[in-house]
Every structure is written in structure tokens, then in C-alpha cells.
């Protein structure tokens, strides 16, 4: 038995500015941390507190871990002030991770919004490691403005990773010097050339986006068991004990954070 509340001492090796409000922290924990794509960590800023984040890096790398974070609350505010060399702490991994075993042979549709692409990046690394295992890997991503697009440096590489992989991105509203797609991420789901019956959809983003992505997916013909959503709730312990991150009788920290929509669709206020 060990103490699950103790944070593993961790060094901030590098800080990469992704967007004006999003930074990627390259972390070196005192001992290697093995995580499955989609599992999450509790990241401690000493004296400030913890917050849950799914890493954004390749799960095969255990010596270092990247976590990509939007500045939005007290812990993330403190994180954004950190410089390389700072000490933080990590607990985890927690949660189930993405349903990778259900994706083999399937047409996988990945829908991300804003910083929601960060957790999905671990999934992209995992799927692109063996693209032939999947019939198709289609990635759709949207952000509000061009400067809020995360990981722009990797879009070409992802889109060309294999013949069965495509990557499309969009911004919400027109912007100067932008010649790409304009429109909410849901507009990328209007004319899907996907065999719906053999597809599984995974989405991560703000709750309001998850809501409209879900409605759109249902509209185009997906069924609730085919839809997986990265749900957001306040978390503290990460292990199903403190009881606050429930969606219905599920705890996101234990049963999620990615939940099959079929399991939670009956829950009142499911999208907050």
C-alpha cells in the first residue's frame, strides 16, 4: 500500500507557449509515470493546490510528460507563471482512458475544440503509431481564432501520417489573413464521408461544444453508444472517494473522464 495523496516530485523542464492563453509544460517526474491514452493526472502547484489534466504527450514516453493547459482558474493561473526549473508534483494516472480496444477496425472520428485537442493528442499519438489497425482516422478541430489553434506545427504531419488519416481545422469567426475554413467545429460534421455504422466518435472540448457536437452527431446518424465525450466536473481526490465529480452514479475520475454518451444521456443537466 502507498499513499495515493502524495504528489511525486516533478521538475518543469520546459514551457512552450501554444496560444496567448495556453501553455504546454514539459515535466520530468522523479520516477517514470506510465499512463494510458486518455488517463489523467493531478498536477500540484506547491502550496496552491491541484487540478486534473490529461497529458497531451505520447503515452509511450514515460520519463517525460507534457501537459497542455488553458489559463482559467487559480491553479492554472499559478502554473502559467512557472518558469523552467520550477518544482511541481504529480499524482496518478487516474481514470479509464480512451476506449482504444473498441476502435480497432473502426472509422474513428475525433472532434476537438480549443484546448480540448490536448488530451486528444495522446489519442492521436496512439492511433498514428499503428494506423493500419484502424479503418480510418478522421480528426476535426476548431478554435475561436487563428491564434487560439493548438499544436499548429503538427497539423501537416498528422494529416499526412497515413493514407487513412485526415485532419481538418476551422476557426469560429473570420479573421484577417486567414484563408482556411471558418465556422464552428460542428460545421465540419455536416458532410461526413464516414461509414457511420462502423464508426466511433470521440470528442473533447468545452461543455457547450460537447453538447452541440453530440446533437450534431445524433443528427447525422450516430447512436449514443458510438459517442464518447470527455466530461468536465470538479475533481479533488481522483480516485472515487471525495464524491464530487459524479455524472449520475458514475465518477468521472474512476469511470471516465471519457464517458460513453449512452451511459449518461438520461442524467439531468448532463452538459452543465
Amino acid at each position, binding site marked *: *500500500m*502507498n*499513499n*495515493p*495523496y*502524495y*504528489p511525486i*516530485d516533478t521538475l518543469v523542464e520546459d514551457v512552450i507557449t501554444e496560444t496567448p492563453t495556453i501553455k504546454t509544460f514539459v515535466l520530468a517526474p522523479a520516477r517514470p509515470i506510465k499512463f494510458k491514452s486518455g488517463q489523467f493526472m493531478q498536477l*500540484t502547484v*506547491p*502550496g*496552491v*493546490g*491541484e*487540478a486534473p489534466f490529461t497529458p497531451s504527450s505520447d503515452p509511450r514516453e514515460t520519463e517525460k510528460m507534457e501537459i497542455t493547459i488553458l489559463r*482559467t*482558474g*487559480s*491553479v*492554472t493561473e499559478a502554473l502559467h507563471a512557472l518558469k523552467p526549473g520550477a*518544482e511541481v*508534483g504529480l499524482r496518478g494516472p487516474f481514470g479509464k482512458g480512451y476506449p482504444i480496444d473498441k476502435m480497432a477496425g473502426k472509422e474513428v472520428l475525433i472532434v476537438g475544440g480549443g484546448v480540448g485537442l490536448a488530451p486528444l493528442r495522446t489519442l492521436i499519438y496512439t492511433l498514428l503509431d499503428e494506423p493500419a489497425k484502424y479503418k480510418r482516422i478522421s480528426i476535426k478541430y476548431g478554435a475561436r481564432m487563428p491564434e487560439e489553434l493548438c499544436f499548429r506545427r503538427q497539423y501537416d504531419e498528422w494529416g499526412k501520417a497515413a493514407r487513412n488519416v485526415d485532419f481538418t481545422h476551422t476557426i469560429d469567426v473570420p479573421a484577417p489573413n486567414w484563408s482556411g475554413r471558418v465556422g464552428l467545429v460542428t460545421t465540419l460534421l455536416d458532410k461526413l464521408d464516414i461509414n457511420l455504422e462502423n464508426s466511433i466518435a470521440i470528442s473533447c472540448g468545452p*461543455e457547450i461544444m460537447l453538447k452541440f457536437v453530440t446533437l450534431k452527431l445524433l443528427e447525422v446518424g450516430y447512436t449514443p453508444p458510438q459517442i464518447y465525450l470527455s466530461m*468536465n*466536473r*470538479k475533481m*479533488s*481526490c481522483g*480516485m*472515487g*472517494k*471525495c*464524491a*464530487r465529480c*459524479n455524472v*449520475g*452514479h*458514475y*465518477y468521472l475520475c*474512476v469511470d471516465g473522464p471519457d464517458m460513453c454518451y449512452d451511459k449518461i444521456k438520461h442524467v*439531468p*443537466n448532463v452538459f*452543465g
Partner: protein
Amino acid sequence: MSFLVHMYYIDATNFERLLKKLSGEGELYVPVRNAETEKLRLERVDTFPLPEGTTFDGYRTVEPLKAIAQLLRYPVAEYPSTDGDDMPDEASFPKTFIVGARGCDILAMALIDKVQIEGEFADAFYKIRRDKMVVVGADCTECGKSCFCTLLGNKPWPERGFDLSVAKVRGGYVVEPGTEVGEKIVGNNRDLFAGAQDQHVRERGQSRAALVRRLETQNAAYPKTDTLPPIVRGALTDEIWEDICAHCIECGGCTNICPTCYCFLLYDQAADGGHFQRISAMDSCQVTGYSRMAGMLNPRARLIDRVKHRYYHKYDYLVLSHGAIYCTGCGRCIDVCSASIDMRDAFRRIKDKAGSRKE
């Protein structure tokens, strides 16, 4: 009768001698009647004769056992680690003897154990406190106006989860060991105990039956709450919940005093020597900040959603996830409520509504 083999009798004088002996082995907690409020408080005692007001009569104490097993607040980690050992030091935890614990509260501990100890991760601190806790239960000899254990199919005496259990009879107590630890306490103090006589056991049975009748009479107007989970699940209309929580002042008293409510929050603070401490503190799902996330998002921003959540968590979610209703019918939430919200009455309304909807 074969069960008599395991039953003992101890007179009141010897019982106090036994407690004195136990107090030498660890911290002793007993119910003490407060002269002013006339309520029983669970107090640590180490002086003998036992303080005035100490009694094993009556019903549950004001404090539930989680006050000793989980604590209101306790440090769970100090970081960065000073000695590389991040585990609690077991030797620094005292052995505790809880004497006079009631059936409802002993059941409640088993429910919190499921959360804190079972599963992939265990709270090492809670586990040590529980491992070092010896529970001597006691039959209720009275019931409070708010007591409703029988509505849940529970009994006003300890049925399981105790090391020893005592029931008041003329001149002393019938003693029933529930574990090896309890058997050992009897074995090590054999001179204080006698074998229980048929008449003692009969007297215990009569008292128990009489108290069950009293509880059933006082709660006759309310529905059996053990049949509620599917009904709660169906009671989705806001109207009913608005009605139930119309006068709630959002104090969190009901969850704080509940013997089965275990929700907590981890927070960090500065400690000595440039270190930091992580604290686990009891929390309440009835206050707004409980589920509020960064960016002020809150899936339970409305009071009715929080009140609804409390009933659902106890009577539905935990039934599905942990196989039990997280309510033992102790009635503390009824006593503590400044708005006079009575769970029994809430369920009566829910059940009435569910019944009328079917018709």
C-alpha cells in the same frame, strides 16, 4: 439454546472496571449526557469513576463515528517528502475504544469503509484509524423523535460490524462478541464476566421488540425508505424538489452531521521548513462551491439541484455504485435542520407523487 454459548453477562460495576482497563490500552470514548441540552455527546474519558452523565442508555450521540474515523480535517501528505517515506506512521495513531456505539452508526462506518478502503486505492490514514478502532456497540433503550432506522429495515441495536455489543438488562448488560477482538477482550477479563442466563437474553429480546414497536408507531405515517431507489429515480420533476427545499438555508448541517456522508476536499497549505501540507477536509455537496469548476462553471449551481443530488446520491447513485443505501435512519439531519426539513416527509411526498402519477 446454542447461541447462549457466545453470550455473557457483566454487571454495571464490572463493566466500569472493564472500561477502566480498556482506557489503559488506548483512547476511550463513551456517551456522556450533557446536563444542559440533555443530549448524548461522544466524549473521550480517562478518569474513573466515569464522569457524571456517562450512560449507555438512550439512543445515538450527537456525533457520528466518522468524527473519529475520518475526522473533520487531517493532513494526508507533506511534500516535497523529507525522508522519502510518504506513508503515515502507523505507530503514531492511537488505538481507540468506542463504547456505546449504536446500530445505525456502526452500519454507517461499514458504508464509509466501502468508499475509503475498498477499490484500487485506499486512504491509508482512514484505514489505520479504522484498523485501530475497537467498537463496543450498545442497544438503544429509547428512540429519538427523528429516529427511523426501522423504515430502512435496520434495527435499533447493533446487528453486525461490532467487536462487542452490550444490551442493558436488570443490574448489568448482556454481552455479545462479534469478532475475535471482542472474544479476546472477554477472554482477557474473564473474571469480570459471567455466562448469560436465559432470563437475560429474554429480557434483551423483550426490550428490543418493544423499541421496534415504538419506532414503527412513531413512523407509521412514513413510507418504508428501503423501497425508495426506483421511486427517487423517477421523481425528476423540479416541482417536488422545490417544495422540499423551499426553506433550506444551505448551511450544510445535514451532510456534516450525517454518519454516512464522507465527501471531502483536498487543499494545500504552507508548512514548516519550506514544505507544503495537503489537507483532507470534510465538505458538503449542499454548498455552492462544492462542484464549481475553474471559469465559474457549475453543474449544480441551483439549490434544488444540490438538494436533489443529496437524495439521489444516498438513495440511488450509491446503490448502483456501492450496493447500499447511504442512510441508516439515524435522523440527525432532521434534528439539525434549521428549516425543519424532514427526510421522511420528503420521501412521503415523493412516494405520493410517484403513486399519483401511475394512476
